[in-house]
């Protein structure tokens, strides 16, 4: 019924009744979904975390000897976890009260189906949940992508840097930030026109995406880019930045023969920041290094040094 490698959306049914799982397996077998099952609240939460399903069909009255966790608890765990918030939850319950339905919807459930369910209705509600989710995800992504360069935008950069910084501090992991600015961009625009300037940004954005898969290149604003490098120490980040620097320098611009465009880079390793740094501290450390690169002649990489010795 389910192809493990299928790209069909994943639907996880959490219900303590084997009868319901059998029924869903048969009734949903012709739908373009992958169906998974969990028979307790506990198992359900574990599977939600592991599987990242698109839709959860959640029995409200999960009570088969399961440490007192019911459907509401599962709903609360899913909706309380930022990583799981976009999982659509359709609550299924046998003759639930109006209060139960309202409470489930207020807690973030997308929809409600009564048990015993009409199978055509259940299918329609699953399809509807998937449609809405697809649109929400598309909008969410669109709101975080820069139109000019197709890189992540500033909104995403701030959010992602906050997340990565938090994780680096919590788990004592390395993290570096590279800020990059096109040299003499204003002059380029003035001499060759804004369409050329736009093309330069677009091409540079493409170069900044040729790095390691884990690097997160974003448009910070104007002609400035920010690249987040998780699990990367300063010395590695310098190498990464220098590779970008050379690639940009070597780029050929057919519309302006002989043209050489360069960029300057500032690198900061989270390790040099004292105390519990904010993303502003981190960005300004990398920015200070970037301005030193500009000051020291452009087309170069500089690294931030600690203001106060660490510790």
């Amino acid at each position: 019924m389910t192809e493990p490698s299928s790209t069909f959306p994943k639907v996880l049914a959490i219900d303590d009744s084997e009868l319901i799982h059998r029924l869903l397996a048969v009734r949903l077998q012709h739908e373009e979904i992958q169906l998974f099952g969990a028979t307790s609240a506990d198992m359900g939460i574990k599977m939600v975390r592991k599987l990242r399903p698109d839709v959860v069909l959640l029995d409200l009255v999960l009570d088969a000897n399961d440490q007192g966790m019911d459907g509401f608890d599962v709903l609360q765990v899913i909706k309380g976890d930022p990583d799981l918030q976009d999982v659509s939850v359709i609550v299924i319950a046998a003759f639930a009260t109006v209060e139960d339905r309202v409470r489930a919807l207020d807690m973030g459930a997308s929809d409600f189906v009564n048990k015993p369910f009409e199978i055509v209705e259940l299918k329609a509600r699953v399809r509807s949940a998937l449609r809405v989710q697809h649109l929400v995800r598309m909008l969410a992504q669109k709101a975080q992508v820069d139109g000019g360069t197709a890189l992540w935008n500033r909104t995403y950069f701030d959010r992602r840097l906050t997340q990565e910084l938090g994780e680096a501090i919590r788990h004592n992991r390395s993290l570096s930030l590279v800020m990059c600015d096109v040299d003499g961009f204003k002059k380029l625009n003035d001499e060759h026109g804004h369409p050329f300037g736009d093309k330069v940004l677009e091409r540079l954005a493409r170069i900044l995406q040729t790095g390691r898969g884990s690097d997160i290149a974003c448009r910070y604003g104007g002609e400035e880019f920010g690249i987040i490098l998780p699990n990367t120490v300063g010395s590695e980040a310098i190498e990464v930045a220098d590779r970008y620097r050379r690639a940009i320098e070597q780029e050929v611009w057919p519309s302006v023969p002989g043209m050489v465009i360069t960029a300057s880079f500032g690198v900061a390793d989270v390790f040099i920041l004292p105390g519990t740094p904010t993303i502003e501290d981190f960005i300004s450390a990398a920015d200070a290094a970037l301005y030193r690169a500009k000051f020291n002649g452009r087309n170069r990489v500089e690294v931030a040094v600690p203001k106060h010795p660490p510790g």
Partner: protein
Amino acid sequence: MRLSNDQTTLRSEFADDPDMVGIVALFIHELPQRLAAMHVAIAAADREQLRMLAHQLKGAAGGYGFPKLGEAAALIDQAVRAGNDDNVIRSRVGMLAAIAARIRP
């Protein structure tokens, strides 16, 4: 429900659905065990277990094409929740058993 007279046999509403034949047969096959488990729970005064068994049947029986069975299970679930005494519960489990006894593949 095709037949509603109390003496007649009951067949699943989905008896002719080729997708459903297998799981309906399994459902019917397991039904005596479910009833036996309810009797065991009553004898052991395990109301929680009884409620769970009734609750599962209440939610699922309709899906297998036996809504009457689901309604009877709902009455048991209700009685347990209301804290009714054993006589009421036994009589309701008896009603469920009577419906179950009429079911044929």
